Each structure stands twice: as structure tokens, then as C-alpha cells.
């Protein structure tokens, strides 16, 4: 589903954010991506959605070589990947429902599809009754649920979350993680960047650790390297 082959990413000022990374994430897997700040986690995610291009190496998403993807096809790649940010990135002048509808309009969904998907994702993330609230009227956990609902609305086969619980307390964080696990059991591939050791320890999922742009351990391919 997601395959990196000897991928190196060097930024303009010479910073090597990823250094010769190779890994494979299968369809339906749940993966934690961990590592200290600046270790290249966000860069990894940006390469997956082709917001950045690798300096060298190859990336395949759904068996498609991203280097061969034309600019005009990038939006269609992104529709296959739901992205969740640490700071939610909601539109604060729109209600919960409108934020979700916004995503569906972006992918030019039909009115009918918008209606059915809206109620389905609201239920999936447990936001029933909050449809007409504005983000500012919600708790952090609820706001992240809105972001999650927005990412799910377009039914992407992959969900990527960059420190989704970074701004949340432990209890709320657990709630968000439970929702992500549940999404995963329904077949969606999930990649979560996190710092939270409690969350990782409480799960038995694959953990890939980065440091200074290198994979230092991967619980699937043989524990600590």
C-alpha cells in the first residue's frame, strides 16, 4: 500500500530529513511512526501525499510510482489519503456539518452522497447532536473528531495522522485512538505519528522509530535495529 525504496529527502538548505529509508506498509496495517522532534516523521507523511518529492529513491502508493504521477493527478492521490493534523485545521466559521460537507464538495461528491456520508461519519466518530455546533463551541477532543470525520468523509483507503493527540489530555487521546483502531478494523490502513509512549505501550501495533532521518527500529521487521 505504502512502499518506500531507498528514499532520501534533502531540503533546500541541505538538511537531510530522511536518509535512505526503505519500508513497506501493507493494506489494512496499523502503524505508529515515532521519533524525536526533527527526526523526519512529518517529512515522511509529506512524501506520501506528494507535498514534497524525494531527492532520491522511489515511493509507491497503491502500486503507483509517485515520481511518474503528473501534477494534475496529485489531487486524486490525495483523495485516497485522509490527513489529520495535530492542530485539527478546521474552518472556524463553519459548523461541524459544514466542515465535513466542505470536504465532500472539494471532491465534487453528489448531493446524495454528501447526505449519506455526512450522517455516516458523524456517527462513526461519535459526534451525533453536534452537527450544528461551531468548532469553538467544542472541546479539543471533539474538534479532533470533526477533523477525523472530515478525513473519513471521502472514504480514503489510507488515513494518516500527524500527532493527532498531541494537543489532547490522556483520556481524550485514548478516545481518538480507539476511533482510529476501529476505523482500522474496517480495513483502512492507518499511519499515526505520535510521541505518546502510553498509547504505544497500550497497543500491540507495529512501531517504526525514526531518528535523524533513519529508521532505528521497526517492530515488524525485527525489533530494535
Amino acid at each position, binding site marked *: 500500500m505504502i512502499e518506500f525504496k531507498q528514499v532520501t529527502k534533502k531540503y533546500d538548505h541541505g538538511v537531510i530529513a530522511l536518509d535512505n529509508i526503505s519500508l513497506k506498509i501493507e493494506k489494512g496495517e496499523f502503524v505508529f511512526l515515532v521519533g524525536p522532534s526533527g527526526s523526519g516523521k512529518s517529512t515522511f507523511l509529506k512524501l506520501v*501525499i506528494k507535498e514534497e518529492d524525494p531527492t532520491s529513491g522511489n515511493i509507491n502508493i497503491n502500486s503507483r510510482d509517485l515520481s511518474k504521477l503528473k501534477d494534475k493527478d496529485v*489531487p486524486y492521490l490525495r483523495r485516497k489519503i485522509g490527513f489529520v493534523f495535530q492542530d485539527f*485545521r478546521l*474552518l472556524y466559521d463553519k459548523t461541524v456539518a459544514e466542515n465535513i460537507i*466542505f470536504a465532500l464538495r*472539494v*471532491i465534487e461528491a453528489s448531493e446524495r452522497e454528501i447526505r449519506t456520508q455526512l450522517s455516516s461519519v458523524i456517527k462513526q466518530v461519535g459526534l451525533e447532536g453536534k452537527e450544528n455546533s461551531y468548532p469553538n463551541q467544542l472541546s479539543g477532543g471533539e474538534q479532533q473528531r470533526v477533523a477525523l470525520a472530515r478525513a473519513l468523509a471521502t472514504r480514503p483507503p489510507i488515513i494518516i495522522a500527524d500527532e493527532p493527540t498531541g494537543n489532547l489530555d490522556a483520556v481524550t487521546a485514548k478516545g481518538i485512538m480507539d476511533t482510529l483502531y476501529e476505523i482500522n478494523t474496517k480495513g483502512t490502513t492507518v499511519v499515526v505519528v505520535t510521541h505518546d509512549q502510553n498509547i504505544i505501550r497500550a497497543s500491540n501495533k507495529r512501531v517504526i522509530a525514526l531518528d535523524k532521518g533513519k529508521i532505528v527500529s521497526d517492530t515488524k521487521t525485527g525489533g530494535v535495529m
Partner: protein
Amino acid sequence: MKTSTYLFKQGYENLKKHGSKTFTTMLIICATMIVLGIFLILVENVNKNVKTVTEGQGLQAFVSDDYLDDENIQQIARKLKDVENVKEVIYLDKDDAFEDAKSTLKEYAYLLDGLEKSNPFPASFIVKFDKLEGTEDVKETIETIDGIYKVGYNETILNAVMSVADIAKVAFFGIGTVMIVISIFIISNTIKLAVYSNKREIFIMRYIGATNKFIRRPFIVEGTLMGLGSAAISWVLVSLGYIAIYARLPKIGSTLGVFGFAPYSELWFVVLIAFILLGVILGMLGSSLAIKKYLKA
């Protein structure tokens, strides 16, 4: 709400949000349009005058005295009518030419006294054109016809009118281009405000998988609305202005040789179409320019 309604609403709301800036921008677009509109009306009027003058003018093909029998005259007339771009052929026999000369000379007509018998004035055909372009070709063709020994043509008047038309056209394109560039720049700046205040939306849209086309659309709608609004205002102003001063202007064709103006009924459509096209083009180019930076994949 349908997607198209949604887009329209977005575009309109962007316009409202930056109301005063939108107003100034439209004022500048209107100024551009009105200046271009005035030029367009002038050029149209010059063209119409050129047409009238040319139609009145025509060529004069002189017939040798050896070809004045009916058969030859009829043959020459037929050949002339067959030439492309010839609208009408009028025969002036030697007597007509003599009378013509007398009336041209007015009080000096006595100079011709005693010449009636020998009549030195040649018979001729007045050849009128369909259109102004290619009259040189008509002249060359006519010169080759048997029995025609000379083809004349009031080149001075025609050339003067043509050069006025050319100057008006060059000025139209020159000033027009400058004003259009300025307008595009100003529209683009105004739409940049809207783009800027929607930066967050655009950012999120790109992550969700919006195509560039989709992101661009509300801004294009906004720009086009501005352009069309300005077109409507400019058209009303220009129309009222022309109608108001038309009464005091010399009318086209009323006095030969004097520049005259056409009634607005012959101009309003050209002006309207020009303004609409200009509005759409200005709006679309201005907004495309404004959003360009935010669309890199």
C-alpha cells in the same frame, strides 16, 4: 445547495467582504472600459465614414474617343461590372463630362465657351466599390480593359481618411493595451485579498484533494462578476453619454466630405459585446494571476 450555486455564493461573498476595494477596482475597470469604449466608437465612426466616402467616391475610368460606339460602350460596361468588388457602374458620356466641367467651374464656366463642338472632355465610367480593401486591384484590372486609357481616383481624400482611421486604430490598441494591463494588475491585487483571506481554506482543500480548477473557480467567478458588473455600468454610462451628445454632433452622410457620426442604434451592440468580452477576459486573467502562487502541487 448545488455546487454551482455554492461557487456563485462564494464568489459573491468574497466580493462583499472586500467591498470598498471591490468598488475602487470596478471604478478602474469602468474607466478602462469607458476610454476603450470611446475609442471603439470613434474607430467605428471612422470606419463608417470611410465606407460612406468610398462609396461616394469610386473610380473614374476614361474611355478613348475611338470606343464611343454603343457596342463598345456596352462591352466595356459589362467587363467593368464583372470585376470583383465593383458594386455599380455609371456611364458619363462626353456631354455629361462637359456639363460636369461647367458646373465645377461655376462662374468661370465662360472659359469653356466655344468648345462645345470639339468637346475635349472624355467619356468615362464611374465605378463604385463594395468595400474599401483591394481598390488598387480593381484599378489595375480596369486599366487592362480595351478602350480604357486612364483610370483616376481621388487618392488624396481617400488616403487622408485612411490615415485618420489608421491613427485611431493604433491609438486604440496602444492606449487600450496599457489600460488593460493596468486593469488586470489591479483586479489581480483585489482578488489576492480574497485569496489571502481564504488561505486556510485553500490549504485544507489541497490536502483533501481539490483540483487546481476547483480551487480557482470561486476566484474566477469573483473576477468575472467584477468584470461583468463593470461592463454593465460602463455600457450604461457610454450609451447615455453618446445619446446625450449625439444631437449636437454632425450626422454621418449629411454633408459630403464632413466627418459625421452614426446614430447609437448602429453602435450599441458592438460596444456591449466589446465590454462583455473585455469584462470576462479582464476578470479571468486577473483572478488566474492572483491565485497562481497558491496552486503549486
